[in-house]
Each structure stands twice: as C-alpha cells, then as structure tokens.
C-alpha cells in the first residue's frame, strides 16, 4: 500500500460488485461460557459467505458478514437485532443459538420483514407458538430454522432406545436449559408411550461439574439407560462419572452431545447420540463443508452447529441470488426474500433443506450414532414420522 492514495482497498475477487454490498448478520454468543458454539457458528457462516463472494453467487453484490454477540442474554440479543434491523443494507440474519434469545430477536426482525434463519434453536414455540403440539400457529413469518425442533428429536431418540436398544428402565437427566428440558420432555412422552418406564428424573446445575450426587440419586432405581438433555460439556463428564460410580449403562443424548469433544471429555463406547441429517460420511455436501472449514484455517472448531449454520447461511445466499437476478436489492425486497426463503430447496451439509408452513425444516432425517473406537459411528438413519 501507499500512504498517498486513499482509494478503495476492495481487493481480491474478480466478481462484479457494482451494485454494492449486502450484509448478512448473525446473532450468537461470542463471549462467555457457550462461546464455543457461537464462534463455530460465526466461522461457518463466514465460510459460506466467503465462498459465495468467491463464486460470484450473488451477481452484482459483495456480501459482507456482520456477527453480533448476544452473550446468550435476551436483552442483548434484542439490542443486536435492533442494530441489524436499522441498517438498510442488512438483508438477513443467521441465528440465534439459544431459543430464549431468538424469542426476543425474532419479533424485532419480523417487524422489519428481515429473514432470520436459525441453525440451532429447538424450542417448538418459535415456529409453532405456545401450543406447539396441539394447536400450532406460526408467530413470526420471517423466522426459519434448519434445526429439527424438540418435537422431532426427542421422540426419535426414544424410539431407538426403547425399540431398537431394548431399554425399558430409563433415567432422564436434564440441565435445566431450554434445549435440554424440551428434549427430555418430548423424549419421555414418546418413551412412555412405547412402554418404557422412566425410573428417575433429575436435574443438574448448568455449571455443575461433579455429578456424583445426581448419579447416586438415580443409582438405586437401577436404570438400564440414561437419557441426558443437554450439551456435551456436561454430558461427557457425566458419562464418565456414571461408569465410575458403578452405573455402567449407556447414556443417550441429542445433537447437543454429538460432538467429538463429547468422547474426549469422557463419553464411553456404547453411548448414543441422535443427530439431525444423514451422517457426514454418506453426504458429499457434508464432507465438502468439513474439508472447506479445515482448509480455511479458523482457530476455533466448527462445533456441533457448524454444518447447520453453513446451511442456514446458504439458504439466505441462495434466496438472495435468485432475488437480485431480476431487480436490485432494496429495503422493500425484504418481504420477497422471506418468500424466497420459504421456497428454499437446498442440498446442504446437513441434508436437503426446505421449510414447512411453520418455518420448520422438512428435513426430518435423523441419525442415531454410537461411540465406537473414539468416534461417533452412525447406526441408523431414518425419517421421523409424527405418530399421534
């Protein structure tokens, strides 16, 4: 560079960016305790956007990524959402991580017709309103998610554990957070319907690390499996401590524990996890993501929600690409972008992404994996059908 020229430094790409820049925002926790997920999400979205810029996916525009930290706090998320919403260049938002933060961000974005695609929220109410199971009603027309909600994943796990693995006396534990509690609730319903007995229900503190008293509490009921609603940072140690306390039964959890770190932290061979989408090995798109992520050299791992964040971002990019082919992007295009996203049909890293009338993913493909030889090995992939 030189100190005399004050010209534009937009470098690198040979794409036509004459129409300007479009911003894709993100709201996720990037500092504090769960930042591992937030940072993985940030990198994955960044990757998708870089790829789009390189491939000139959105003709005439340069895409810019704007991640905003929400510290997992609803009021901070609302602030971040407002900040993004008041910028006319913001086309869409990826996020959030927590359902509770989504609850405060979604209304603000909805008011400005800004599309929001979450890779991680699983709270059913976000797409189906408060009476999600009985009288679903979509609260936010702009809200979509690529993660399967708890109404899907919990029961899916229950079916495998009860019917395939033949466990009949199950202890359930959750971490008291939105995801864990919701997952366990729906797991329990389905498991009981299938004839299993829930012999103990316990909670662990969000920041607990020594679970021995929880384990002692369920030990006397002699369960033959433990279902855990929560994330791997607690689930790994929990699994190990179960064994150490002489309760050597398998632990099962949702996508929150389907991470290699789970095994590092104490997950035992024979533990199960459900995961959204087909296994990475069976999906070339998934492998492509993993490779591209590794090649990009981000300092943090992509985390459990990396592939879905990547997909969520690509949903937006794809819809934008279609939209700006005909007319330039203006604030008024936002409504049409919502419609475009609704029509998405994208072969993504987590499977085919499309949305139902509530904004939920139609991808009900789930996989059960088990820990074997130090990694998760897919056991069974299936499509979940609601059974009422």
């Amino acid at each position: 560079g030189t100190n005399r020229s004050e010209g534009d430094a937009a470098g690198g790409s040979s794409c036509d960016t004459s129409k300007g820049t479009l911003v894709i925002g993100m709201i996720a926790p990037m500092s504090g305790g769960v930042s591992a997920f937030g940072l993985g999400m940030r990198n994955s979205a960044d990757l998708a956007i870089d790829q789009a810029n390189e491939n000139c996916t959105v003709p005439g525009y340069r895409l810019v990524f704007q991640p905003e930290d929400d510290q997992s706090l609803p009021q901070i998320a609302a602030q971040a959402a407002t900040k993004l919403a008041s910028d006319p260049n913001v086309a869409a938002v990826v996020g959030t991580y927590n359902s509770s933060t989504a609850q405060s961000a979604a209304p603000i974005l909805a008011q400005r017709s800004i599309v929001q695609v979450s890779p991680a929220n699983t709270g059913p109410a976000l797409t189906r309103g408060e009476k999600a199971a009985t009288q679903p009603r979509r609260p936010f027309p702009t809200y979509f998610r690529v993660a399967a909600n708890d109404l899907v994943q919990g029961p899916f796990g229950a079916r495998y554990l009860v019917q395939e693995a033949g466990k009949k006396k199950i202890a359930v534990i959750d971490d008291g957070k939105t995801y864990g509690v919701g997952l366990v609730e729906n797991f329990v319903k389905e498991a009981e319907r299938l004839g299993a007995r829930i012999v103990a229900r316990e909670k662990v503190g969000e920041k607990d690390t020594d679970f021995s008293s929880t384990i002692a509490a369920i030990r006397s009921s002699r369960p033959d499996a433990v279902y855990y609603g929560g994330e791997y940072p607690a689930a790994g140690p929990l699994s190990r401590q179960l064994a150490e306390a002489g309760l050597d039964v398998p632990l099962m959890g949702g996508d929150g524990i389907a991470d290699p770190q789970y095994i590092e932290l104490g997950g035992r061979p024979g533990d199960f996890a459900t995961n959204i989408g087909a296994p990475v090995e069976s999906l070339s798109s998934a492998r492509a993501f993993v490779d591209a992520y590794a090649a990009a050299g981000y300092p943090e791992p992509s985390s459990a929600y990396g592939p879905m964040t990547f997909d969520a971002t690509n949903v937006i990019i794809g819809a934008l690409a279609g939209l700006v082919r005909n007319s330039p992007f203006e604030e008024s295009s936002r409504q049409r972008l919502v419609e475009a996203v609704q029509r998405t049909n994208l072969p993504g890293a987590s499977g085919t992404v499309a949305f139902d009338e509530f904004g939920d993913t139609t991808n009900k493909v789930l996989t059960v994996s088990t820990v074997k030889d130090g990694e998760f090995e897919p056991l069974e992939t299936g499509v979940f059908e609601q059974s009422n």
Partner: protein
Amino acid sequence: MSTLLSQTVNGLVLGSLIGLIALGYTMVYGIIQLINFAHGEVFMVGAYGGLAMSTYLLPGFVQQQWYFALPLLLVGGAVVSVAVAVAMERFAYRPLRDAPRLAPLITALGVSVALQEAVRVFYPGAISPLPFPRVFVEGAYVLPIGDGVPVRYTGALIIVVLVVLAVALQRFIDHSRLGRAMRAISQDRDTARLMGIDPDRVIVATFALGGVLAGVAGILYGADLGFVNIDIGFQTGIFAFTAAVLGGIGNIRGAVVGGLVVGLVKALGGQYLPGGTAYDYVWIFVVLIAVLVFRPQGFFGETERVRA
C-alpha cells in the same frame, strides 16, 4: 442405606474441594476484609496451569506414573496460581488499600471476569471444556455395603489433602512468626507497622498461601473429574465463599466445616429434600440464610465485642 452413604461420601468429597478453596477466601478476608471474588478464578487458573504443564512440558512416560506426575502437577498448578494471586494483589488490590470499602470489591469482580475471559481467549481450545489427565489412581473403591458405596480414589485423596493442609495451615497461623504477623495486620494495619511488620510482604504472603491451596485444589479437581472448564472457578468460588461465610469468615476451621456442610447439603438435599436435584442449590442457600439468621457470625465467627 447405601444411597445415604454414597451421598454422604459425595458430599464430603465435594465439600472438601470447596473447603480447600474456602480457605483462600477466608485468609484474604481475614487479613484485608476483602471478599476476593477472583479467588475462584485463581483455582481455575491453577487447573489450567497443570493442564498446560502436562500438555506441553511433561514427557509421556512421566505422566504414566502417578507418583511422578501428581506431585509435579501439584507444584506446577500451585506455582501458576500463586503467580496469578500475587500479581492480582500487586496490581489490582494494593493500589486500593486505602480506597472506600466497596471499590476493591468491584475490582475483584473485574479481575474475576478478566481472568476467566483471558483464559478463554488465550488458552488454546479453552472455549470448550478440555480433558484433564488422570494423574491419580483411576476408578473407585466400592465399599461393600448394600448396593455398594463407591468411593473414588481421587475423592479420598481430596479429603486427605484438605485435612492435612487445613491442620498445617492452622498451626502455621497460630504459631509461626508470619502467622502472627498476619493476624496482627488483620486487626490493625497501622499498629502492625509500628511493630516492624511490613504489611505489603505479609499480605502478598497471604495471597500466595491462598494461591497454593487454590492451585492444589485445581489440580485435584482436574484429576478427579477428568476435565477443566473456564467457569469452574466462578461456580465453585461462589460455593466456597458461601462455605467461608457459613463457617465464620476469617476462620480456618470455619472454612473447612463450612465447605463440608455445603457439600453435604448439596448431596443429601438433592436426594432427600423436596424438589430434588432441581433445588439443591436452593437448599444450600436456604441453609446459609437460616444459619446466619440464628448465628449471624457463622459457626466459628468471633462474637466477642472488642473493647476500644
């Protein structure tokens, strides 16, 4: 019966760990009347110090043998904790010696946040929990009572270490010259200076001692649970603070007893009190409030009115 016993064992182990940390709270409080919220972070940093040592320094064969690895890591963790505790005293608290009473409290909270975030940002991989090497005999001995009462070897080690260190500390404070200087400073800093005591040195020594205990606790914690996380300090720290107050803040015996009570209430309360494990924290704090209402100075706090 075996459940009751197992929960008691669990409570004692957890309580001993809390007690080790509570000792640091109590010593610092005793000497400068500061609730050093960052002390939990000193514990956390100790654990990461040990982890760094085993990851980057110790050759593999050393780690195989616990009787090599454990002492080395204990020393390593203690050194890191002491360094952090001393630096904290020197740069954050010392300039505030004569400031209004609440200022250092805010500083302590700032140090706590900053340390935790510093580890998260600068320690490779610390954004998620990291596995910690098992540097002591793994597994548990199962007492043949009823269904069996598992006692982790590391858990037993923690209890033993607490007892040994607490007794040693009490003797040190009661009988050594430095211990006497510590007590003198805690009562009247200016007059202590008139006795020829250098408060700076003694206060640093207090922080360092607290650091040793926290570092040891950090390593034992890692060895016991097999992983470390950046927020362990905060959570355990709050419990330790509770324990210190419960026992009578400023009092060594109190910290130990308080720690054990907190551990036992969590384990037994989660089992037998209404609400189960969902409310175990609540029970700890309810017990705390109840104890303080009936004994406002904690179990062993000093009651005597000091005459002027």
